[in-house]
């Protein structure tokens, strides 16, 4: 949910009035100090009440994920403050943005780790990348909702897909290692969740504002492949070699990537400090050991993994 329209209008009116006053002020008054900015990201690791979340809380704090996130986001000049909290949610498995705050539930982290631990990876997809990639994509997906709201970015099409697209586009701008880990990791989670459904969807299932996990899986593959086509890289060539991305979709992927790129350049980039962005892009954000301390001790299950294709419905 966004801030109410009335509040936004009031803030706009106040800032407009302020700028008018500044323009009209005689020179002596114009030298008054500028008011302190209210932008900036506030982070919080909330102590878990559920003992089952203690290990997650300790691990994420030790890794300084939110401190790193704050630094990662530093080039973006937001007009209003954003707070991000990792917290327990009374059993709710979710992460969401509302009214200037991102809430990321420990329950969500636990489910990611459980689902990934039980899933068969596709060739070239790694469990540790799924742990890391899924966590990061979900955080940036919610950040995208925040950005659309706080920067008043027009979004045509489903906002949930737009949030996926912006998150994944950003992750594709940090070199092939980050791109590979996070995009395959994201795709891994959507695929695992789609396969875990294991039941016929009802009509009501389609009423959700999100696409299905299957749709989100293919959207991620397509955007990643599209980045290869547009950037001239080969980070995701296995998506084609292993026939993960159907032929009928491949022809769209360069265009899909370009659409997101153009939207980013026109609507987000003007709010980005270019010097800070260069610094952030030169930083190594992921460590090779990220995600590895959570793998099941026996390693991934044996057996030839199957690509996500039309599968027979359970009888």
């Amino acid at each position: 949910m966004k801030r109410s329209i009335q509040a936004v209008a009031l803030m706009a009116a106040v800032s407009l009035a302020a700028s008018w006053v500044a323009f009209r002020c005689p020179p002596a008054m114009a030298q008054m100090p500028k008011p302190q900015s209210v932008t900036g990201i506030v982070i919080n690791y909330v102590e878990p009440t559920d003992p089952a979340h203690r290990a997650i809380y300790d691990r994420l704090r030790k890794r300084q994920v939110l401190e790193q996130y704050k630094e990662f986001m530093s080039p973006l000049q937001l007009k209003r403050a954003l707070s991000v909290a990792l917290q327990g949610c009374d059993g709710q498995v979710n992460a969401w943005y509302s009214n200037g705050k991102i809430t990321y539930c420990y329950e969500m982290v636990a489910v990611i780790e459980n689902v990934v631990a039980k899933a068969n990876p596709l060739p070239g997809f790694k469990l540790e990348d799924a742990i890391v990639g899924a966590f990061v994509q979900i955080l940036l997906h919610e950040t995208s909702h925040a950005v659309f709201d706080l920067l008043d970015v027009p979004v045509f099409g489903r906002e949930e897909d737009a949030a996926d697209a912006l998150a994944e586009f950003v992750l594709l701008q940090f070199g092939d290692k980050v791109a590979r880990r996070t995009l395959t990791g994201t795709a891994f989670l959507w695929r695992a969740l789609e396969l875990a459904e294991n039941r016929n969807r009802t009509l009501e299932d389609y009423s959700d504002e999100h696409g299905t996990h299957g749709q989100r899986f293919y959207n991620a593959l397509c955007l990643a492949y599209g980045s290869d086509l547009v950037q001239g890289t080969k980070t995701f060539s296995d998506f084609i070699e292993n026939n993960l991305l159907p032929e009928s979709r491949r022809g769209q992927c360069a265009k899909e990537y370009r659409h997101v790129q153009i939207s980013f350049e026109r609507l987000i980039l003007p709010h980005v400090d270019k010097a800070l962005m260069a610094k952030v892009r030169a930083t190594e954000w992921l460590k090779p050991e990220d995600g590895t301390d959570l793998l099941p001790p026996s390693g991934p299950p044996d057996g030839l993994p199957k690509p996500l294709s039309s599968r027979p419905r359970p009888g």
Partner: protein
Amino acid sequence: MPSMTTGAALGLALLYSLFDIAQARAQAPAAIQNPQIEIAYRKPSNPAFQPIYDRLTRLKVLEQFKQFTAPLRLPRKLAVTVDQCGTTTRPYRPQGPVTVCYELIEQIERVAAKAEKGAQERLIVGTFVQVVLHETAHAVFDILQVPVWGRDEDAADNLAAFIMLQFGDDLALQTIQGTASFFLLSEKTWTGSDFADVRSPDPQRYFNHLCMAYGSDKTTFEFLVKADEGKEPMLPKRRAVRCAREYETFRKFFNMRIMPYVDPDLLTTVRSMQWVTR
């Protein structure tokens, strides 16, 4: 190509009779039309489509569309054609025409034959309107350089639905319900790699249209959230509570990116005209 059933032929006749009425009622001055839109009816090579071609040209469906879109100030020409495509849709490409395929009109007819007798006419008219607006939406996003973050097909659906909701309750009810019926009667089940399609599953498109409608007017579309004892409403509550925001958000973005290209005086004129209504 299967021959048209009696029911489908009847439905086609109903569709065209409504456009006949609309043309008579519209009575717009000849000057009110979009000078940037160039229309064409391509003669089909398949004789099964000849009756569709004959009726569309007789009823001047595209000429009416040229009137309807008069307020939209496009910076360059846009061709809108009806054509035989070999498939139900021919994707829009930049600089290319908007195409409505005879094959899709025939598919609408076939689906309509599955609906209750009283709902067939509404399904045909509503879906036809949605299809023309949806295909034109792709061109509008391209020509006006509207940034589309989400999927193109969903964005085009949203714009089509939004426009359908701007011309009074009658037109809104008919076109939204007609379109929704078309998607609901789709028999395709979606699994696995079906989800790679650029189009969303028909049931999602069904709910997206209902949600835009309910979000635009909770009174006119109250029936979507009401249900008899023991039955589920058409629009589940979990989604319904989000719809006003979804609609208002879309309207805000429409005002930001598309409204600047709309002539407000021509819009008032076009909105005062009677279009396709019951």
